[in-house]
């Protein structure tokens, strides 16, 4: 065994990235920037019919072709980034943060609190997600904050279940018992002893949930209770142009590519996070 002195550089502490992770991060950042500056980049107003032909091909004038109404797809994809990236990221963060926090509390407190919360959220899980979305939007009307809150509420119980199962496992480890025997408070146990040790799986779960949320969001838009026309998120763009698939229209391909690039890069990034964050328990 060597006891040589090691200088704690970021790489040695395990905070370095590999290239796959960097590519993932770069694509996420690219879409995040587009979400902010999209309206200024768009060559045409996204809701305006600019071409008399429908499902037009790629051309110098319309880089990604035109949709079923003759609207410019490039402009619509650039505007859609704002809805898809923004809404999906905000709701996945809300769902996971809430679920993980409640899950850790339930896992550590245990007893009747755990039972009550778990059954309550299980029951909530039983409501079909689109139906739940319909009822909420019918009751309070569609707006972006309402969409974010609805999607977060739909995915919170799953995240809670996942985090609770992990927290219960970590909670029985001796180091948590030692901290408890030391007299540590509840917040310390949860934040310092348990949270770092469940972080890796929780992040992987976040990546998966993000993809689901993009899909449900497009489902809601299809039903007319998501993003309101003339604006559309990427999922809605795919849905409204789906007939173009048999015509080989780029109108359906490019929004799909956008969704794929975002969801794949989110998962690439999370799977290749610095080992120090991802595999703390190893």
């Amino acid at each position, binding site marked *: 065994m060597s006891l*040589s002195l090691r200088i704690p550089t970021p790489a040695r502490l395990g905070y370095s990235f590999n290239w796959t992770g960097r590519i993932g991060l770069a694509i996420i950042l690219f879409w995040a920037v587009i979400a902010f500056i999209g309206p200024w980049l768009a060559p045409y107003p996204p809701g305006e019919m600019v071409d008399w032909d429908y499902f037009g091909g790629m051309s110098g004038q319309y880089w990604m072709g035109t949709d079923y109404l003759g609207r410019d797809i490039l402009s619509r994809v650039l505007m859609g980034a704002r809805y898809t990236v923004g809404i999906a990221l905000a709701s996945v963060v809300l769902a996971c943060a809430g679920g993980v926090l409640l899950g850790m509390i339930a896992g550590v407190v245990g007893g009747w609190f755990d039972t009550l919360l778990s059954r309550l959220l299980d029951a909530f899980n039983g409501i079909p997600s689109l139906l739940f979305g319909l009822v909420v939007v019918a009751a309070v009307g569609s707006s972006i904050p309402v969409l974010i809150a609805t999607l977060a509420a739909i995915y919170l119980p799953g995240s809670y279940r996942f985090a609770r199962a992990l927290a219960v496992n970590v909670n029985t480890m001796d180091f948590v018992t030692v901290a408890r*025997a030391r*007299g540590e408070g509840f917040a310390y146990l949860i934040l310092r002893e348990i949270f770092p040790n469940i972080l890796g799986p929780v992040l992987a779960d976040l990546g998966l949930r993000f993809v689901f949320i993009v899909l449900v969001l497009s489902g809601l838009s299809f039903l007319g209770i998501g993003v309101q026309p003339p604006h559309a998120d990427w999922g809605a763009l795919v849905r409204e142009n789906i007939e173009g698939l048999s015509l080989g229209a780029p109108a359906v391909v490019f929004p799909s590519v956008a969704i794929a690039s975002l969801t794949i890069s989110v998962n690439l990034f999370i799977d290749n996070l610095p080992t120090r964050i991802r595999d703390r328990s190893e």
Partner: protein
Amino acid sequence: MTEALVSVRDLRIGAVTDSGRQVQIIGGVSFDIAPGEIVALIGESGSGKTTIALSLMGHTRTGCAITGGTIRLGRHDVTGMREARRAALRGTEVSYVPQSAAAAFNPSKRIMDQVVEVTEIHRLMPRDQAEAKARDLFRALALPNPDTIGARYPHQVSGGQLQRLSAAMALIGDPSLVIFDEPTTALDVTTQIEVLRAFRAVMDKSAMAGVYVSHDLAVVAQIADRIIVLKGGEIQEEGTTEQILNAPTHPYTRQLLDAFEPVPHVPAASPGGTILEVRGLFAGYGAVRNGEPAAKILDDVSFRLERGRNLGVIGESGSGKSTLARAIAGILPAYRGKVRFDGTDLHPDLAHRSKDQLRRAQIVFQLADTALNPAQSVGAILARPLTFYHGTKGAARDRRVIELLDMVHLPAALRHRLPSELSGGQKQRVNLARALAAEPELILCDEITSALDTVVAAAILDLLKELQRELHLSYMFISHDLSTVEAICDEVLVMLKGKVVEALPATGMRDATHPYSRLLISSIPQLDTGWLKGLEQDPELMAQFMRR
């Protein structure tokens, strides 16, 4: 000399680390095994003993590979043949008894189906013949109800029985070589005797050769004809069991033997009053009804520990030793009885104890792997109790962390590492340093040396003694290993099924009067080849106290 059954020549096994570096695990090992001979491979963890044993089957663990040398088994060249040929050898020419029988059995299949599996895979004999043979083996291995035990599931038999059943599984194909990989390490001492006896009897009767992997010299002394001492993947010394035990030539062998000799404990000069007094303590697990939990473990435990003295608690697994430590620490609140610490009563539940009361009595757990948070650096682990109990911060805290590491003989640079980057002994030292950070008066040590190698464990015991002299600590030392307890304790409690059956002075353990303490103490293997043969235990006593 007859031709050797197994001959290993210049065996080299290497592995590639995660960072792509080549490391050598076994560096040029050569030895022979004669037919019918039992050879023991002994050494500390990481010495390569299991790696060598597995390589005799042509098998290496994932990531390792045989990089050089030859292994010949009978007329087969194990290293030269293809994997499919090797698979044909396994079970018929060479077989394996794993350390953990509980993990080796499929919990969802009946025992008989698993024992005769080898005969089915190699198409050795018809099923009814195989079952008859298995029953003969069960009988030879002294298993109870040999005719019906095969119909049970693995969870329906005890640990010692399961270990003997896994031996039956290995022996059914009549191999010429059996590899025993620490088969008794996880067993209680009284069970270990039974298993060793059964192995010895079967091996004596048959002409099979054996390789016995162990870190315990006393166990090996009972069963092996020859001993090979390994360290760092190289043979240090090779000789007959008698020669290794009585006239070792290599310094490392001597070190191993020395670690076995208990250094008599010199008690502190003057006890300074009672530090811990436990009276009529009852504790248990499960749902509490009418003030009593469903599973009652501790049953009316009382004792007293003087300041500066050490109390040992011995007993088999399930005797309630660890529960006692947990009840005293308040982790598992006792439902009846009193814990008095330095003259004041402690609340049974630690949540109602003051910070200072918690600080003065610290608990150290057996498995340093799970007792250290894998997400925190050693420095952060040691710094937390300093901030929590003493409010130390900044540079003063850093200085104290280095001081603590120095106290447990670890270099200061270690504070930047994560627990996963430390060896087992280093982890246990950090574990101890964390308890010391609180500046306690009493440390409850729950089997802290049990998971360590003999030499490392001896070093930890020396460290405990040194710390006691310097810091005037008292220890409550829980162990199933008698020589450890003898080496550090002044008084010993013998526990059985949650009760203290006897309290003895540590020096007078051989004069125990209670039958169970006598049985337990006589079951500890001695460094003497004739010990197991000469050991006579009252069968009635065994039947009375052992869970068969």
